[in-house]
């Protein structure tokens, strides 16, 4: 996969848990254009092991001199976000993928309701730039834990004015999804990004009220979960690979030198899908891409976030 060589131009501590990174091209040229809601996958080398994590681009799509991402420090994860927080410094070179959009605005929409929880605000930062440029009708509903965790709340107040509605757990202000979604004009689209419970609640509420499926949009990148080690066999490459507890199947395949397709690495896009040729155990599907019946059929697996249990798993790669 073609990568872009960037270097870190600035790092800003936005909240106690969130850092904002600014990337520019290493050779000083412009970065590729992107649309609101896009993300890039950032490669980082932690002790010889390459981690690749997806992050939403937060800057304005109008600006192609720099890319902006924000990273929330996740303590109980595999170390990617902690490394970004502690080891990445200004001037450091990094490799990122070209921008990719799995969370774009519905251009035919009459009104756009954006619902963000915590760090889930990031994809909306670039979408808002697009919405403002289009002169679109929108509302941004932003929920966070306490005032100091409202990354970008002040900046958003400045740029969105009355379009912004904040809900702060510590002030006991809560977003009433039922009330919000039961009285919207025809042609409204809803977009949600945030913690799993918030995404599920939004999808369920909109569906139960009769919103058509193509008016409901969500994005939730998953990080590969830590699990039991297991072995895989790649039929075409004719190799057996050990997947360690902290490594994803995709990372183990890459570390073994086998080229595999990928885009988001967060269980969303479907690009890394592999056919399962044989299995004697359970597949632990963690992605948001396969349907329930596909998951139950044990014929396909997304190696970026899913794992397996058992002695034998043969993949068509």
């Amino acid at each position, binding site marked *: 996969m073609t990568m872009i060589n960037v270097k870190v131009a600035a790092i800003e501590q936005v909240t106690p848990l969130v850092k904002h990174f600014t990337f520019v091209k290493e050779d000083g040229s412009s970065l590729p254009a992107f649309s609101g809601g896009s993300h890039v996958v950032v490669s980082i080398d932690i002790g010889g092991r390459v981690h690749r994590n997806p992050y939403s681009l937060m800057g304005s799509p109008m600006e192609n001199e720099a890319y902006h991402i924000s990273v929330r420090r996740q303590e109980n994860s595999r170390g990617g976000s902690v490394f970004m927080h502690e080891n990445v410094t200004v001037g450091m070179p990094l490799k990122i993928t070209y921008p990719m959009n799995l969370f774009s605005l519905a251009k035919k929409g*009459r009104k756009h309701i954006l619902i963000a929880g915590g760090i889930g605000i990031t994809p909306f930062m670039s979408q808002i730039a697009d919405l403002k440029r289009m002169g679109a009708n929108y509302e941004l509903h932003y929920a966070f834990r306490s005032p100091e965790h409202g990354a970008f709340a002040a900046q958003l107040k400045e740029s969105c004015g009355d379009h912004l509605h904040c809900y702060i757990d510590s002030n006991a202000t809560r977003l009433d999804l039922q009330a919000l979604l039961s009285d919207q004009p025809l042609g*409204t689209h809803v977009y949600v990004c945030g913690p799993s419970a918030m995404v599920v609640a939004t999808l369920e509420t909109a569906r139960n*009220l*009769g*919103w058509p499926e193509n*008016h409901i949009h969500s994005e939730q990148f998953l990080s590969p979960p830590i699990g039991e080690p297991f072995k895989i066999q790649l039929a075409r490459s004719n190799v057996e690979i050990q997947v360690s507890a902290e490594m994803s199947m995709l990372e183990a395949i890459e570390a073994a030198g086998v080229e595999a397709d990928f885009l988001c690495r967060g269980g969303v896009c479907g690009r890394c899908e592999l056919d399962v040729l044989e299995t004697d155990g359970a597949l632990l599907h963690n992605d948001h891409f396969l349907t329930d019946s596909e998951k139950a059929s044990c014929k396909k697996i997304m190696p970026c976030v899913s794992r397996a249990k058992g002695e034998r798993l043969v993949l068509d790669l």
Partner: protein
Amino acid sequence: MERGYWIKSKPVYNALVWHEKATAHLVLAQNQGGLAVLKLFQQMQPQQPVTVIYAQHDTDYAKTLKKVVPDGLDVVSSEQELLVSLKNIMPSMRMGLRVYVAGSEGFIWSVAEVLKTFGVEEADIMKELTDTLARTIYCVHCKAITHNITTNIGKCSGCARMLFVRDHFSRHLGAYMGLMIDAESPGELPEIEEIYP
């Protein structure tokens, strides 16, 4: 036509079925589409408010509909009247409305065009084809629209060219593409047959 060949732009119509999840239902039907509405009410009387607008000219399902539809039934005498009623009620509709249309293809897409102006996307509308397979065609040469073409080749209402009626459908125009059939050899026409009765 070649077996197994299928143009994806050609709409596929289904039988109307209530959406279980909705805050209101709007049913629009014409002529034989009245039977599709009766079939809907055979499935159940939904809990949510239902509005039915029915345009009839050569059929009479109105009598039965009046017995079956609890309230919110509006019977009109033409497609034009139906579209006027539709424009009047749409401004009060909100997200959660589910829309069902039954009638000829021309009717379905006339309704879709009005609904689009109120923010209802074509993909969100449930559609059942009744009455006729007659096609609306769009002349790719003069851009005129000609309605009710029942034959493989039809005459353009705008430029009088003889047009081959394709399966290639535009959801934006609500019409099939029509291409001049005798462009290479003027006047030489294949046999004209009724294939969209």
